[in-house]
């Protein structure tokens, strides 16, 4: 039997007994079989059982009152808890806790869509509601609203936004207008306008008065979120993407600046930038290397190749050296006018570039006419992401290296040079080959992020080497000013550690708050790199 650190077997057994009395025996789990559901199916520590983070037990409350009782019992026995909503955060730790031995508070049974308001375009959700369930709820009732679903439709708005995740509409925490949470002392708090008794503005005005403490709940451990106001998007009349490409290497910079300016002006809703020729040999999941030797030779040459050499190769292969894309939506007339504007905008800037409009998708969508791999991008969550990410026959899952960088060509080139050098210095040719050259996308309005999937293998030695490389990449990128926006359970300290300005003032401030509101250190110790005093390595 695994015990939480610092908890005696007697106390643990007493707590399990009390959980059983509070929730019922069928909602308290201690068998190895049951607890396998709370292991990270994609653990980076495969083959290293002493390092894998596992739970000691799990409990599944169904109401706020039951969550409060769980918290009270945990305080009584000083038992560490770890709350998870749908538990589908594959690539970032799944349902696994941050501290081995924690008791997982599985909120999947709290799966009510409490309210959907069509007039003000929001939903009040419990944490166990998944994206596909919410989408189904809307479609079943002919409600013309879309949910900003992540690629993995089995995840949900609450868990995704609480990990600063993104959906097809971008930053999901930006869509959170209010939170209800059980605090470490068992009290229930409502943030923002929800603090007004009988207030009407909770779903529509997020700040309330005074500090907006909603930001204390994502990637942190100051409460168990039991309800969330999540803004939805009115279904547009039309959605349409476009891309602009050029064979000229030096067009990349002006193109990135131009697409971002369209976004800053609010003319387009999403944007991204790629160099298809430099990325021709990438083989991350979902991509197939074109195995062009000259591409690898140029990328590995000093200064990663002269512009003239890339231009010549582009003409020889027909693969563009620069490409940007954007999406527009709204009334059909406005979409047409916006695309005309974008076309003219790029034609003036780069007359030789090629502008291509994508397929116009009119709502309500006839899903029978849309390839399933395009559903998520149109606001229709599904499990296709699972299907794409299912084991590729050679690996056992993946975890993400996901740095943020500026949405500017200089930063994209610099980040690629830095990462490639770290991979080459580590003598990891396969990792380097899969990386190839990465562009960026923009779920966040003013920065780019990329998702590089480190694959997990049966070979524990190989996995251990990759863990070291991951560590080196995070630290080296931080030296250049690029930090991760999200991290698997085992890397919370690593990533939080690079946010170390002024002698880690941010971490120390969070620890001070943690000790004040959670003196027994029961809620998700280590989440966000925030450790309560009892577990802190001073």
């Amino acid at each position, binding site marked *: 039997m695994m015990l939480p650190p610092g908890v005696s077997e007697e106390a643990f057994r007493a707590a399990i007994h009390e959980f059983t009395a509070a929730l019922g025996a069928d909602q308290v789990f201690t068998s*190895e*079989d*049951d607890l*396998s*559901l709370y*292991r990270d*199916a994609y653990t980076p520590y495969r083959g290293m059982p002493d390092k894998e983070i596992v739970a000691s037990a799990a409990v599944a409350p169904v109401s706020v009152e039951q969550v409060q009782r769980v918290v009270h019992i945990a305080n009584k026995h000083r038992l560490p808890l770890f709350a998870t909503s749908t*538990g*589908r955060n594959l690539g970032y730790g799944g349902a696994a806790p941050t501290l081995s031995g924690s008791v997982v508070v599985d909120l*999947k049974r709290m*799966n009510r869509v409490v309210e959907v308001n069509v007039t003000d375009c929001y939903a009040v959700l419990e944490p*166990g509601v998944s994206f*596909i*369930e919410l989408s*189904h709820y809307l479609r079943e009732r002919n409600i013309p609203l879309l949910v900003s679903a992540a690629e993995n*439709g*089995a995840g949900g708005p609450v868990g995704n936004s609480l990990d600063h995740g993104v959906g097809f509409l971008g930053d999901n925490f930006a869509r959170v207008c209010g939170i209800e949470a059980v605090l470490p002392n068992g009290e229930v708090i409502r943030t923002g306008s929800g603090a007004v008794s009988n207030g009407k503005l909770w779903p529509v005005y997020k700040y309330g008065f005074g500090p907006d403490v909603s930001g204390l709940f994502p990637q942190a451990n100051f409460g168990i979120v039991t309800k969330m106001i999540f803004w939805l998007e009115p279904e547009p009349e039309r959605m349409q993407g476009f891309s602009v490409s050029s064979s000229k290497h030096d067009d990349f910079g002006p193109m990135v600046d131009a697409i971002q300016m369209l976004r800053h002006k609010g003319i387009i809703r999403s944007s991204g930038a790629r160099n298809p020729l430099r990325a021709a040999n990438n083989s991350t999941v979902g991509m197939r290397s074109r195995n062009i030797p000259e591409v690898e030779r140029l990328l590995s040459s000093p200064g990663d190749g002269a512009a003239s050499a890339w231009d010549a190769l582009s003409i020889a292969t027909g693969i563009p050296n620069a490409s940007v894309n954007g999406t527009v939506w709204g009334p059909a007339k406005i979409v047409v006018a916006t695309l005309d504007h974008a076309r003219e905008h790029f034609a003036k800037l780069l007359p030789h570039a090629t502008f291509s409009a994508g397929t116009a998708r009119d709502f309500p969508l006839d*899903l029978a006419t849309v390839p*399933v791999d395009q559903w998520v991008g149109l606001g229709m*969550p*599904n*499990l*296709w992401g*699972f*299907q*794409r990410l*299912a*084991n*590729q*026959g*050679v690996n*056992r*899952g993946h975890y993400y290296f996901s740095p943020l960088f500026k949405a500017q060509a200089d930063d994209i080139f610099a980040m690629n040079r830095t990462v490639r050098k770290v991979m080459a210095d580590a003598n990891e040719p396969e990792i380097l080959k899969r990386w190839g050259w990465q562009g960026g996308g923009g779920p966040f309005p003013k920065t780019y992020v990329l998702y590089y999937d480190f694959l997990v293998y049966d070979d524990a030695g190989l996995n251990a080497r990759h863990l070291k490389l991951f560590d080196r990449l995070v630290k080296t990128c931080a030296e250049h000013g690029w930090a991760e926006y999200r991290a698997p359970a085992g890397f919370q300290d690593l990533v939080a550690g690079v946010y170390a300005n002024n002698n880690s003032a941010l971490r120390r401030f969070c620890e001070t708050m943690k000790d004040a509101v959670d003196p027994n250190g029961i809620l998700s110790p280590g989440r966000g790199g925030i450790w309560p005093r009892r577990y802190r390595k001073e």
Partner: protein
Amino acid sequence: MVTRRQVLQAAAGAGLIATAPHSIAQRNDSLPLHRVVFDGRHEPGVRFAAEAALWGAETSDTRGDIAALYVRELMTRWRKSAIAVAGLTPYSQLFGLRLMAETPRLRLVFLHELKSGDVYGPANVCRAPLSTDPAATARLLCGWPAHSATVARRESSILSAQDHPFTNDALVAWLMAPVSA
């Protein structure tokens, strides 16, 4: 749903028409089965479903999209109570459905790669001879003894299904059963 035409074609191909009635009730001790899932884009899937239909099982075609099937037919049923579901699909579709089945606490108790005939993971309790014949596999799953599901679930780990290197396109037959079966 499998069409009558598909059933007749598949049954004729398997030489079953002369011997099998149109509907064979499940055995009394067999695991209650909510539905048999197949991907009609693959011929073995159609044969599997046709045989299951002869055994009295409801069948559903994913047509390549497991999410739509989950939302349309499984989510609501599983919210009422956990009940077993069997299938023959590409592995990638099982991968997603298996995770959704965690919510009602179903376990993967049988996993069989059709091409190789190999049985993986927690299916060790299966004593019946296995073959690459989808119809034979359907007969096995439709008549799966309830007590075997209980034994299998003791040996089951959701993770164990990941211990085998399937490709996304590998056709696998599977059975997920509730913890309390």
